[in-house]
């Protein structure tokens, strides 16, 4: 595992294109970001901004057409699919997606889902079960749920299991793509709390969402993705209180807040006009 200070993930000038020849279009352009241990970086962007593509690139699910991705100091951007599979099997990078019903095998019990990544690594069944139970407690779920199928659980419980499953291999980095977007407010806060605790254990988190409120709830730093580019990257407090790029300003000015005056309508309209010009 990486030593302190060295980034777990370093992305330099990443370019990603989809499609071939005339259909070829750029999805990510000049994207750079580094994440260190114990740090949570929020990536915020709207539908089509490229945020899920970014997640997929870091997991080796789409191929970069330019730039570098360093995981724990090692350049993985030219890895073959076989190398990527081996890397994912080691469980150094894990991921949690929005819809936990689709990311958990509906035919596997909670126990089987949780211990599978460990069995793949050759951990003995008994020890795997032990570790699975520990992580179930970590996400504050009753061990009784161990024998249930995903279909018998609530959305919040399923998402906690997806988080526990990401944790069992003791990864250095977890990528969460819209992990709370499908949840009600009680479950949303529950998951965000667990994520905050995780950060304190030293794992690096990338929290991807279209919801600035949730991102602000957990992130130390925020990266604003707009039309395939990071238009603003900075400390969460700084980005929220002092956004500079027009899109970041529009985003912050549009987010409903309780006590602060969000940008008024005239200001938002001026920013929209600027962006569409």
């Amino acid at each position, binding site marked *: 595992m990486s030593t302190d200070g060295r980034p777990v993930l370093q992305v330099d000038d990443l370019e990603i294109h989809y499609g071939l020849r005339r259909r070829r279009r750029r999805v990510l352009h000049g994207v750079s970001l580094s994440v260190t241990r114990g740090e949570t970086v929020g990536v915020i962007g709207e539908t089509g901004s490229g945020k899920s593509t970014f997640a997929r690139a870091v997991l080796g699910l789409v191929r970069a057409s330019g730039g570098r991705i360093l995981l724990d100091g090692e350049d993985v951007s030219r890895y073959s699919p076989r190398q990527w599979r081996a890397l994912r099997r080691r469980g150094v990078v894990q991921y949690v997606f929005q819809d936990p019903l689709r990311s958990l095998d509906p035919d596997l019990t909670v126990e089987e889902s949780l211990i599978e990544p460990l069995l793949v690594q050759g951990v003995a069944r008994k020890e795997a079960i032990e570790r699975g139970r520990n992580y179930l407690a970590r996400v504050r779920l009753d061990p009784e749920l161990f024998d249930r199928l995903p279909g018998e659980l609530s959305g919040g419980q399923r998402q906690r299991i997806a988080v526990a499953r990401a944790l069992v291999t003791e990864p250095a980095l977890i990528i969460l793509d819209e992990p709370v977007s499908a949840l*009600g407010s009680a479950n949303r*806060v529950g998951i965000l709390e667990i994520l905050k605790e995780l950060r304190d254990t030293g794992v690096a988190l990338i929290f991807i969402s*279209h*919801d600035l*409120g949730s991102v602000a709830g957990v992130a130390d730093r925020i990266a604003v993705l707009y039309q395939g580019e990071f238009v603003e990257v900075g400390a969460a407090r700084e980005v*929220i209180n002092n956004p500079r790029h027009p899109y970041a300003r529009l985003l912050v000015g549009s987010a409903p807040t309780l*006590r*602060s005056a969000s940008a008024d309508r005239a200001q*938002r309209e001026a920013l929209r006009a600027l962006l569409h010009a």
Partner: protein
Amino acid sequence: MTTTRPDGTVTVTVPVARPAAPPAAPSAPAPSARADSPAAPAVVLAVCDVRIRDEVNDREIVRGVSFDLRPGQAVGIVGESGSGKTLTCRAILGILPEHFAVSDGSIEIAGRDIAGLTTPQWTDLRGSTISAVFQDPASYLNPSIKVGAQITEVIQVKSGLRRRAARRRALELLTAVHLREPELVYDQYPHELSGGMLQRILIATAIAAGPQVLIADEATTALDVTVQAEILDLLADLRERTGLALVVVSHDLAVVAQVCDEVLVMREGEVVERGATADVLYHPRHEYTQLLIAEHEQYGLDRYLDAPNDPNDPGPAEQRKELDGVH
């Protein structure tokens, strides 16, 4: 203004203008007396102690919701799934799901008690007096018919206009909801348009027959935050321009606060708190409202925008556990 009805329910009415709620002034002045003055416009929607019963399980799901709405006013209903906010809206629209029924209380739309309305009477009322938009705009449009034709059909049925006039009116409406190229959009299919554009089209359709009340039930929940702000701005704009009265339903207190003068906070079928928006935000009385606000402050944008949190505050997670333990 707070008035107590003979049956004991309290009605809070607030002025048409948006309450001034600057962050620096936590104790916004109480709204001045106005609503009860003789010049006040008539109530367009009166919901009085409405109770809704699940007749199969014989349980009361909504236990006493009351509010009045006058032209140009906006009332917000906040609560999480299962709080009864959507059932209340459906009762107002006369579209309660099967085996749910209003078991007590009354609903009046523009002075007409809706109990016992016949289907043709409802058809008359919906669209022309009261209208609604919901969360997932795509599911309310026919995917194989161009959106323009779908709006035009509503206008022809509701206003009796001929095709060409209805088309002109539809284009006016698409302009009114700030769609950039109404002529182009008119000839597009739903799948060619974004969620924000579809929601604008549904709002255009909903206001086509000039209703007095529009219910927006989680109408911006599925949209990106910048698009959500555009739609909320649009609703505020329609309200100012046409005197449309709004019922805005959301799980997010901040969304409701952005548009509404008055807020009802619902939990498990009951209204646990109600009042002028500024009062509810700055002086929440019920612990559940306090929890909603704490969640925003610790797990939302307000975390950075506001003064530092009180270190002795147990935090929303603890509060939620206590609250869940109580009920």
